[in-house]
């Protein structure tokens, strides 16, 4: 195997991995802190994709710029959903296990709702637009410019988020809540706000990932769920509740997916599920979990 081919597979894998890492971190915020395994996560990706698409088609807005418009909107939607639905559910649940179960089911409800509203609005045919699809030479291989831009963007978001967590007060509150909700509360953290914030941030990351996706791939209202699966696997791979772990998990899945796709296309999803199941059976706490 030539070096260029190897590099091609690796870099391609990292590009997808960047996207997956973004999605995984989003879900990890929702599960690790708010304890909601949000299976409608992918639908927020889909919403972000369609928001960017619509803004581009209707107003000619630059997709990267549209993030400024759609981003806050999706964040607020996520925040409100947590406030109205999951916060109430938490109050009604006698144990954490019961809450995790019922919030999982509730998020399935959200999935049905969001997906079908999207189907009603946009229909089921494939949509797409072209943006930055010019091929670019990178380390000897050729990639579409939009993929490089997407990867750069994902890295940028990652760095911003890292500093947000490390340096700001709110970020510290989130990290505290991720470790131990009760103690964080005792230390004066406004826990309900933080939980809603994390949920909203998770949705925001999904929305951003969706916008980036719309630049690279065609979209339909049904694209969400496979991404949700990948996010869940990445989160479990990295260790449930570990934000850094899910980032690493996302990159690992991107790499593996690309390698498998080279060996035999169509097997990547099966490979993902196999890894997932074996992980649960052997080391459910994941790579970085305790």
């Amino acid at each position, binding site marked *: 195997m030539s070096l260029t081919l190897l590099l091609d597979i690796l870099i391609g894998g990292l590009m997808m991995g960047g996207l997956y890492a973004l999605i995984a971190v989003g879900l990890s915020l929702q599960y690790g802190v708010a304890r909601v*395994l949000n299976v409608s996560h992918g639908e927020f990706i889909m919403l972000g994709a369609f928001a960017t698409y619509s803004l581009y088609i209707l107003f000619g807005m630059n997709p990267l710029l549209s993030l400024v418009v759609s981003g806050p909107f999706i964040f607020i939607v996520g925040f409100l959903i947590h406030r109205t*639905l999951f916060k*109430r*559910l938490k109050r*009604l649940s006698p144990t954490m*296990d*019961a809450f*995790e*179960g*019922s919030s*999982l*089911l*509730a998020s*399935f*409800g*959200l*999935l*049905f*709702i969001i*997906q*079908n*509203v999207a*189907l*009603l609005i946009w229909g089921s045919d494939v949509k797409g637009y072209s943006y930055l699809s010019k091929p670019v030479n990178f380390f000897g291989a050729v990639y579409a410019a939009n993929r490089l831009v997407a990867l750069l963007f994902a890295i940028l978001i990652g760095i911003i988020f890292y500093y947000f967590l490390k340096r700001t007060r709110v970020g510290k509150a989130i990290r505290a809540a991720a470790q131990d909700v009760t103690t964080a509360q005792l230390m004066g953290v406004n826990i309900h706000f933080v939980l809603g914030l994390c949920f909203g941030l998770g949705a925001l990351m999904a929305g951003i990932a969706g916008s980036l996706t719309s630049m690279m791939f065609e979209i339909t209202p049904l694209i969400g769920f496979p991404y949700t*699966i990948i996010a*869940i*696997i990445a989160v*479990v791979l990295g260790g449930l509740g570990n934000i850094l772990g899910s980032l690493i998990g996302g990159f690992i899945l991107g790499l593996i997916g690309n390698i498998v796709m080279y060996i035999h296309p*169509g*097997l990547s*999803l*099966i490979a993902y*599920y*196999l890894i*997932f*199941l074996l992980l*649960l*059976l052997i080391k*459910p706490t994941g790579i970085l979990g305790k």
Partner: protein
Amino acid sequence: MTHSTNFLRLLSLLIFIVLLALIPRYAQPYTIISLNSIFMYIVLTVSWAMFSGPTHYISLASAAFFGLGIYVSAILGDKLPLLVVIGFGGLISSLLALLVGLSSLRLRGMYFTIFTFGLSELIRHSVLWWEVNETGTVGRWVIAVDNTTVYYVMLAILLITLVVTYIIKHSKYGLALLSIGESEEAADHIGINVNALKIIIFAVGTFFMGATGAIMATRWSYIDPSIAFNPLFSFMPVLMAIFGGVGQIFGQVLGAAVLTLLADLLLTKLPYYYMLLYGVILIIVILFLPKGLVGLKEEVKLWLRGMKQRYENT
């Protein structure tokens, strides 16, 4: 409860069953098809709740067991008599359940649920890959069986499932299953072989799922992995059980019957709306009706009794 009320209940139940048995003779084909669908969902819901109800281990793998039965029918339907095929469908599903159960014994709560879901999807994608790459076609044709035979077989499966679940529920094992849902460690320590009980009951429930798949496949005549292993077959039983009231058999039956009828009504007219409505119903039920319709009935009764008392006191 007095003996005469018990007797009356049993009698009305028997009359109801006889009426059901007479339907094919007098009703429209559409009614028979509709009822087949309702029977199918009742069996899926009740079999799911057999294990997942009392133990709170939410399984999202029902589609795998149902779909396996469908494929047994597709592969063996033209080689063996119908009832043998159905029995095989159930048996192979149970065997899969035993494997799944044994491997996932250490998984609790959320981990168990996502494991079962991942497994179901793995099976779906694997069968799809196999069919496309090894067999050469995606779908298969199933030997068709007439409506009336399907009806009677489904009715029989339904009745057997209900009897089995009733017997288990009212035996000491039913009580033990509830205790597993309350405190698995304590149940272990008072002599209940928790692992064995979990696996066996899980396998019993999935037997009926597989058998149902085997017979229903003959109505659809064309099947492929997306049809057979559709994740909806995993979610619907959960939604239906919660909607009707997961703690009682009557609730499970009611939930399945009502939601299937609703789907039937909406499916033809507003397909996207019906999935949307399902999502809304799911959230409403989880938020406001944790005990389902049956629980609602209880609350209404209590409320009425409270009103009556207040009226009598003035």
